[in-house]
């Protein structure tokens, strides 16, 4: 079968839309701007990441997220009386979890579905300088690497029987950090050499094989985000 590159392959949303959504979500979901007045938007923003998960066919993760939201919603209702100390700790934990999970899911979605090349180009169109976009794209790629390395080191420690630190807590930190940093710094150095030997440079024009265009869903999300901010702004005028 003959291979043919489809330059229009992309995830549901454009990188720029993803960032706008992340921004909106961090203002209204995590930052709880607008409080009660934004209630409806709050829940819409909470469920968009779940919808995106389902679109990516991540049924399990999506299902888990829904379960947590629903569970914590009822738990919060159940906890609406005079609280004991333990109950209030529990309530706060729930609160933090429900605030942070949507954004975490969204951030993970963005990292998983955005191609580095797509991201660089989209940011370039928004006139974001290379000095920000290159490090960010390296973070995309390096996050999994750091976790991979860290796991391998954890395994090695477990095998040596030093996972709890041979004698002191400081050693546990040292044993974990030193190989991690050593190995990441070597990989980073080799990565730079490889990238530069393939022409990556700062402030030079580059092209992109992926067609970056706003689609239907992009506009839906953009309008939604704008409405959020407008509604919030209008509300401010009346109060």
């Amino acid at each position: 079968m003959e291979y043919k590159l489809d330059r229009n392959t992309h995830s549901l949303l454009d990188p720029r839309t993803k960032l706008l959504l992340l921004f909106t979500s961090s203002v209204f979901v995590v930052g709880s701007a607008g409080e009660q007045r934004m209630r409806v938007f709050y829940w819409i923003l909470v469920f968009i990441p779940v919808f995106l998960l389902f679109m990516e066919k991540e049924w399990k993760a999506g299902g888990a997220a829904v379960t947590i939201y629903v569970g914590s919603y009822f738990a919060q209702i159940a906890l609406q009386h005079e609280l004991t100390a333990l109950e209030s700790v529990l309530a706060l934990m729930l609160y933090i979890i429900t605030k942070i999970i949507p954004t975490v899911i969204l951030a993970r979605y963005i990292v998983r579905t955005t191609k580095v090349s797509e991201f660089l180009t989209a940011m370039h169109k928004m006139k974001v300088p290379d000095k920000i976009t290159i490090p960010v794209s390296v973070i995309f790629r390096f996050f999994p690497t750091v976790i991979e390395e860290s796991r391998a080191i954890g395994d090695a420690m477990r095998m040596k029987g030093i996972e709890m630190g041979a004698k002191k807590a400081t050693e546990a930190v040292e044993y974990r950090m030193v190989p991690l940093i050593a190995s990441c710094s070597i990989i980073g150095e080799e990565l730079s050499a490889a990238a530069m030997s393939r022409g990556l440079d700062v402030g030079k024009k580059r092209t992109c094989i992926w067609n970056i265009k706003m689609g239907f869903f992009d506009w839906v999300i953009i309008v939604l985000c704008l409405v959020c901010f407008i509604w919030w702004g209008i509300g401010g005028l009346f109060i």
Partner: protein
Amino acid sequence: MDTNNNRLNAKDLINVGVYTAICAVICCAVAISGVIPVMMLFLVVFVPILTGIPYMMFLTKVKKFGMILILNILMGALMWVTGMSYYALVVGTIAGLIAEYIYRAGGYMSKWHGIAAYAISGLYCWANYFGIFFNAEAYFSTRQNFGQEYIDAVTRLLPAWMCPVLMIVDVLCGIIGGWIGTKLLKKHFVKAGIA
């Protein structure tokens, strides 16, 4: 040679990305424990101490103006997006700029300038609490359903005077973290010849 040039090149920017990723992973690991309410207060202790080690390694790669600032902007942005507050980005940027000048004053190699730069740049961590201090009303109005009792408890734990205290704690832990970082740097990476 590229290094005589004062413009940041791809290698510098990739290094920034690499060390931001390491610091971010550490922050995440600590922040996960932050779900337990009391631990949240300790973010300001553990994050500066733990990230000191990669940060000091990072500083050995910094020879040009801008790298510290970019790392700080990125860390601030990450903090903001993952649910802290946008103050982290604002404070992070300003702190990064100050740190940049401090480290430059040390000629990009002085140990104590490095520690000071690190301690200052770590202030984005402290800025995470601003939401509680500056907007206490708003911060707690969403938490009404936890009961007045609980709000009183947290407010008691975090009175306004705690704000400067936390800043001092943050800077002190930054100095400790930076100092541990330089120790380990010398013990391991300098000895191994990779720093």
